[in-house]
């Protein structure tokens, strides 16, 4: 007859999630360290009053069934991903006390990246790393922490560092990072060691209670089944061989100095979001309506060097189109192309829904440099407009296009704002009349582009006018 002498704190009284017979026994093997570690964590959570706040991550490995036992919230996750999953929980629920409980294969092999990066971000989580030098659940394979010469089912002749490298020292690795608050290596090989481990585990959880940041406790633990030892032999193995490779001790305790991590509260109100997106009355336009321009679509290609304002030229035109209630699309060259120093974009203004935003036939080509002119002039339709900066030099225009050489760079420079050459060019284009946009719409485009910077807005308004005047004078 089973008799409970002392109910362990923080764990369920019995384990219905486990199912099957022996509902108060764990699934762990005799002599395994997980049971002791579970008790230490459960007791600390209960003593610190953290069970409501606690979410324990069940990793892949023998502790995948941690959710059978702890009287807390549970999330089971993919192999090695517990620190990332913990990050998600901790960020989403600021008050949650998140425990990432992991074995050596999970934490130091397949999940090494997640482990180090969660530590490096100083996530508000407690990581309990159970190091028993071997994969348990899958049948005793070599782990990243397997000792040199140690036999496992995948190092049958002993771990050979020439082939398999050396045991990974996680506390030492994590101790190279700036953010962690608490790093300690302990053991649960015997009573004396368990007493020390108990303190470290409590400390790690106190840090979580106080929201002070990342704590990491590595626990050297026996696995008699897979190490093929008796419990006594395994205790000696931990004390004599593992400790030699993985020295016990505290590596870091900054819990006194660490300040609680404060996270913002979500704001959901529409008015607040409207404010965040700066939705102001003056940049509120009408939705696109069919037939507003009463004419055909205008397809513009704008091209030049990076820094000549190619993309923003296109955006101003597109925004002017929006201000006029036209259907509008703007599509850039993106990726490596923009790093090559040249860029281009396509803008379509239309009086009905736009199909593809990619242009095959160009109505208006604006080229700020010669390579752009040469690249795209072949795509300009008959009767189309080609607007180039005069700096491209002499160029024989094909007979079927209208070509305009404008001193955009010069006008912008003389007006004291060489960067506004694109706006000067836009002024000239406006004078050509091909866009079918009113002065008010163009000003709307400028306002939307520069509205937040009044000085720039004024400069660009002036230069747009200069361009328009030049255009009107020379193109009449």
């Amino acid at each position: 007859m089973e008799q409970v002498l002392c109910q362990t704190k923080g764990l369920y009284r019995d384990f219905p999630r486990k199912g099957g017979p022996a509902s108060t026994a764990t699934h762990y093997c005799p002599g395994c360290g997980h049971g002791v570690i579970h008790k230490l964590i459960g007791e600390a959570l209960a003593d610190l009053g953290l069970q409501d706040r606690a979410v324990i991550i069940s990793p892949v490995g023998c502790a995948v069934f941690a959710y059978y036992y702890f009287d807390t919230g549970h999330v089971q996750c993919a192999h090695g991903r517990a620190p990332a999953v913990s990050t998600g929980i901790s960020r989403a629920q600021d008050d949650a006390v998140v425990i990432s409980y992991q074995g050596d294969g999970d934490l130091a092999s397949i999940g090494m990246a997640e482990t180090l990066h969660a530590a490096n971000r100083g996530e508000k989580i407690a990581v309990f790393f159970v190091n028993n030098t071997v994969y348990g659940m899958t049948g005793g394979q070599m782990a990243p922490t397997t000792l040199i010469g140690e036999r496992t089912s995948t190092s049958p002749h002993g771990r050979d560092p020439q082939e398999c490298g050396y045991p990974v020292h996680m506390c030492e690795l994590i101790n190279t990072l700036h953010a962690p608050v608490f790093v300690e290596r302990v053991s649960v090989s015997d009573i004396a060691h368990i007493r020390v481990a108990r303190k470290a585990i409590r400390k790690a959880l106190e840090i979580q209670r106080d929201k002070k940041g990342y704590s990491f406790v590595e626990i050297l633990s026996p696995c008699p089944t897979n190490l093929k030892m008796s419990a006594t032999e395994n205790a000696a193995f931990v004390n004599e061989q593992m400790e030699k490779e993985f020295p016990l001790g505290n590596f870091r305790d900054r819990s006194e100095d660490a300040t609680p991590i404060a996270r913002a509260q979500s704001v959901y109100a529409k008015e607040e979001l409207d404010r965040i997106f700066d939705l102001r009355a003056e940049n509120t336009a009408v939705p696109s309506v069919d037939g507003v321009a009463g004419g055909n679509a205008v397809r513009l290609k704008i091209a030049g060097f990076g820094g000549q304002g190619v993309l923003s030229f296109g955006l101003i035109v597109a925004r002017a189109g929006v201000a006029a209630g036209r259907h509008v699309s703007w599509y850039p060259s993106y990726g490596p192309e923009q790093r090559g120093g040249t860029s281009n974009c396509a803008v379509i203004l239309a009086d009905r829904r736009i199909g593809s935003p990619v242009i095959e036939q160009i109505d208006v080509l604006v080229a700020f440099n010669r390579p752009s002119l040469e690249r795209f002039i072949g795509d300009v339709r008959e009767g189309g407009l080609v607007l180039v900066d005069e700096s491209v030099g002499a160029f024989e225009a094909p007979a079927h296009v209208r070509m305009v050489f404008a001193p955009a760079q010069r006008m912008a420079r003389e007006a004291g704002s060489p960067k506004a050459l694109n706006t000067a060019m836009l002024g000239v284009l406006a004078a050509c009349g091909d866009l079918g946009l009113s002065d008010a719409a163009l000003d709307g485009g400028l306002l939307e582009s520069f509205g937040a910077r009044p000085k720039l807005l004024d400069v660009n308004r002036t230069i747009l006018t200069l361009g328009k005047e030049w255009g009107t004078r020379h193109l009449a």
Partner: protein
Amino acid sequence: MAMRLVKGNAAVVIGALYAGCDCYFGYPITPASEVLQEASEYFPRAGRRFVQAESEVAAINMVYGAASTGRRVMTASSGPGISLKQEGVSYLAGSELPAVIVDVVRAGPGLGNIGPEQGDYFQVVKGGGHGNYRCIVLAPDSVQEMCDLTRKAFDLAQRYRTPVYVLADGVLGQMYEPLQFPEEAVAPVIDESWAVAGTALTRANCISSIMLDFNQMEALNVRLQEKYALIESREVLFDEYMLEDAELAIVAYGISARIAHSVVDTARAEGFKVGLLRPKTLFPFPKVRLRDLAKRPGMRFISVEMSNGQMIDDIRLAIDCSCPVELVNRMGGNLVAPSAVLDKIRAMCGKER
């Protein structure tokens, strides 16, 4: 009514914030990076959480963790990143967690290039990761829908406790169009019946997809299939254009559908009775509507895709291969030329014109 010229990738973030999304986790990849960049700017401004993860794998697992708490959460990526996330998506589906994943598709396979493509259809619409699951897949065709369908994705994810994809492409992500900002903002409520939120009320809950008992595992799978059947019966969305008297239906989604829309106009001007069916949900797929269309005498279909022809399988399955279905496609970052679709229409309908 607030209207502004907005980039497709930015519209995703706008939609997410008005939908009450609390957490964004992501990793940079062209042509989806602006989703990450915009999120890094606007999520914190609204007090929401943003983490640039160390990898795509970590990002989807952060999504998994945050989704476990019952919050509205999301990530975005492009083909190679989505491939990496598939394990996590399978876990989301298996653990029945709501989450939104945006795929701004680029050309593949392998590293491919950053041009637009629709070659992720199989890996997104058919499951993609291990196990018997489907994801709801929404397919926007404009910047407006990048915003609106992202918002809808959160509602669907929560209603069915399942991951929902927004399947876009490089063009939709990179282009600017006028966006009408949402008229409503959602203040989401955590469902304490299943979430694990680190609170007294959710302490007894457990998020898991492991079931050692074969019958128990099968029961979960059966329940999932029932859920997907329910989704198929209730959530099909599509647009149609000039299908009333059509003898040929173009089926296309995303940016290809816009090209097809223009083609319908041109073909109609030439006297062809052509229409367009644009699925807005790829799972569930508009099977019933396709089956109805297939009953018309002499009906035929063209699938327009920027892939090797992936959706075309679903069209053929929906109509039991009862009508001719032909493919007009491009790959590698190229868009389908309207003229190529027109040529196919002429070839398929030429005699009856």
